[in-house]
């Protein structure tokens, strides 16, 4: 079958959604389909040009395509008689971020009109789609809440699970992922300042902006923990990242209200490392259960300091949590072959 994967393109920016689309295409081919990727440029600033770009997507004609799997707004507005959605997210600034006052839509009637337009076009697309999957429970709930459509949760698999095979722990706690305010690496530094002196931390990943990196470095200095934390703030090769995970004693991941399980937590679990997270970390709590597969504590330095202290010693208990995390992850059966089978049902 000829399957066209349709995704947005933010020109010259490559992230998790782009990786997901490429791997989706690759695994469709492995499963015996013809698959190609259509990436449609989308520029959301200024917001007043969003409507014309919605029209742009709707005006494209597809031919020689048996099935479409579309991932994002506005790419998923593309017309095709057999469209499956795997919703990574809607245009959140017209929905939950709009309600939270964090929107780029103008604060006037024009803004409201754009919001209504997006909602209407979305509704039309959701109605005409054969099936709707979402990448997380949070996305599913938003879709139900704002648009009144039901969907099945289809969590994205790891693209390279074989790299996360685990190794002997070297006594540090590893915090990977993008560096920004929402991921709250600063909380880990504040906790480290309150934790016993033998606790060591490695924070590694690409900063969203240079300020995210410098802020973290300054904080480590001012808290006096610079000698106990390694800040490797850059884009890491997958093998480098896996090495950090595999040799850690535990991992830490404290995003604010994450949509899904989070690759960082999935990679840790695959490598049999328990995960420290917080009770407001959203989807991560699907994988991390307190004192079963890791630690779920309140997002406060003192509570986190206690978890850090426990998580950094290579005890039988910590190792057992790691094994349990891995079992929980594998039981979920989130693999590419399973994912393709469900999308193509």
């Amino acid at each position: 079958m000829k399957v066209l994967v349709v995704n947005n393109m933010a020109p010259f920016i490559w992230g998790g959604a782009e990786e997901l689309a490429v791997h989706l295409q690759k695994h469709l081919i492995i499963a015996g389909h013809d698959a190609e990727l259509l990436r449609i440029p989308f520029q959301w600033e200024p917001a007043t040009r969003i409507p014309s770009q919605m029209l742009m997507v709707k005006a494209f004609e597809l031919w020689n395509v048996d099935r479409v799997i579309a991932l994002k707004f506005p790419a998923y507005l593309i017309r095709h008689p057999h469209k499956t959605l795997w919703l990574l997210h809607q245009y959140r600034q017209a929905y939950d971020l709009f309600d939270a006052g964090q929107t780029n839509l103008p604060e006037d009637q024009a803004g409201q009109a754009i919001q209504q337009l997006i909602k209407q076009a979305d509704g039309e697309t959701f109605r005409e789609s054969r099936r709707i999957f979402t990448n997380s429970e949070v996305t599913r709930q938003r879709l139900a809440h704002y648009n009144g459509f039901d969907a099945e949760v289809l969590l994205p698999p790891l693209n390279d699970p074989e790299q996360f095979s685990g190794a002997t722990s070297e006594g540090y706690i590893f915090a990977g992922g993008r560096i920004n305010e929402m991921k709250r690496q600063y909380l880990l530094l504040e906790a480290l300042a309150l934790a016993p002196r033998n606790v060591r931390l490695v924070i590694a990943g690409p900063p969203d902006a240079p300020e995210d990196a410098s802020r973290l470095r300054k904080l480590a200095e001012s808290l006096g923990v610079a000698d106990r934390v390694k800040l490797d703030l850059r884009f890491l090769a997958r093998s480098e990242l896996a090495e950090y995970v595999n040799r850690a004693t535990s991992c830490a991941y404290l995003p604010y209200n994450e949509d899904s399980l989070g690759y960082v937590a999935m990679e840790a679990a695959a490598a049999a490392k328990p995960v420290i997270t917080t009770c407001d970390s959203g989807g991560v709590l699907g994988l991390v259960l307190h004192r079963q597969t890791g630690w779920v504590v309140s997002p406060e330095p003192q509570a986190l300091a206690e978890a850090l202290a426990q998580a950094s010693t290579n005890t039988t208990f910590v190792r057992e949590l790691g094994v349990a995390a891995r079992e929980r992850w594998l039981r979920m059966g989130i693999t590419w072959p399973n994912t393709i089978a469900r999308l193509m049902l």
Partner: protein
Amino acid sequence: MKIALCSSFAPFIHGGSRNIVEWLQVKLQEAGHQVERIYLPQVDVPDLLFVQMMAYRWVDLASSADRIICFRPPAHMIPHPQKIVWFIHHIRVFYDLWDSSYRGFPDDAKHRSVRDALHAADTAALNEARHIFTNSQVVSNRLMHYNKVGSEVLYPPIYHPDQFLCRSFNDEIVYISRIEHHKRQHLLIEALRHTRTAVKLRLCGIGASETYVNDLKSLIVAAKLGSRIIFENRWISEAEKVQTLSDCLAAAYLPLDEDSYGYPSLEASHSSKPILTTTDAGGVLELVQDGINGLVTEPDPRALAEAMDRFYLNRAMTQQMGQNASARLRELNISWSHVLERLLS
């Protein structure tokens, strides 16, 4: 520099228009540029022409890309302050193929007005460009004739010119190309019957039309030329192509009125082999000069047979023409370094 390469495509169809884009992408990346490749769908249906052009018009790359390079129509509709067009063909049924059997719709008032509006829109979009290049003199002439737009011929090189070599001269005229009626492999089979020497013919490639492939097979059987014709009706790998060309006597390329010189004639030239073509082959004649780097005959089996015999009998002439073929590439400045220099100037 951030460069967006923009073209149209038909999903799951891999034609030559993708090569020029994808090879350029690699060469630009090797030169240290950030490149985004943007393929957007396009269907050749008169009634859907303008709505699709509008969609291209709404593509917004103004703030993300430093420069855009547009290839296949209607990609040149995309607005950008630094728009470069490397024009490879018009939507030809509304231009030079209007008075041909390819048109597929009536010459009536409606379609004439579609044609006129398309010409006006094309001209306007082309006039926005900072510079217009074409892939051949034929296309440049058409741009001048129909749109009154001047352009510079920028010959597209092949991907890995350095892999081709000349090892020996056996008795075979080879034709490595898609097997299509307008490529006229049948002319060569007929020609071989009129040859007076032991010259051989090797046809390599696959085609979309089973009918034409079967016609060729019947012709070969009817010709009763035994081992003097070899028909390899399969996809030929790059490595095989290099080998075949390095040992052949000469290469044939005789499409009917092609837009550009065609990659087969370039590959032959890089292998220092002369080219056999016809007076009605269009853009091929920009490369091949009769009696210098190949032989140009009437599209007639007897004339072709005579040329084949000349290659066979006069080996010194054949080898000299082969060397001239290689020199002709330098004369026309067909190289990636020249392409990059012109596109980025």
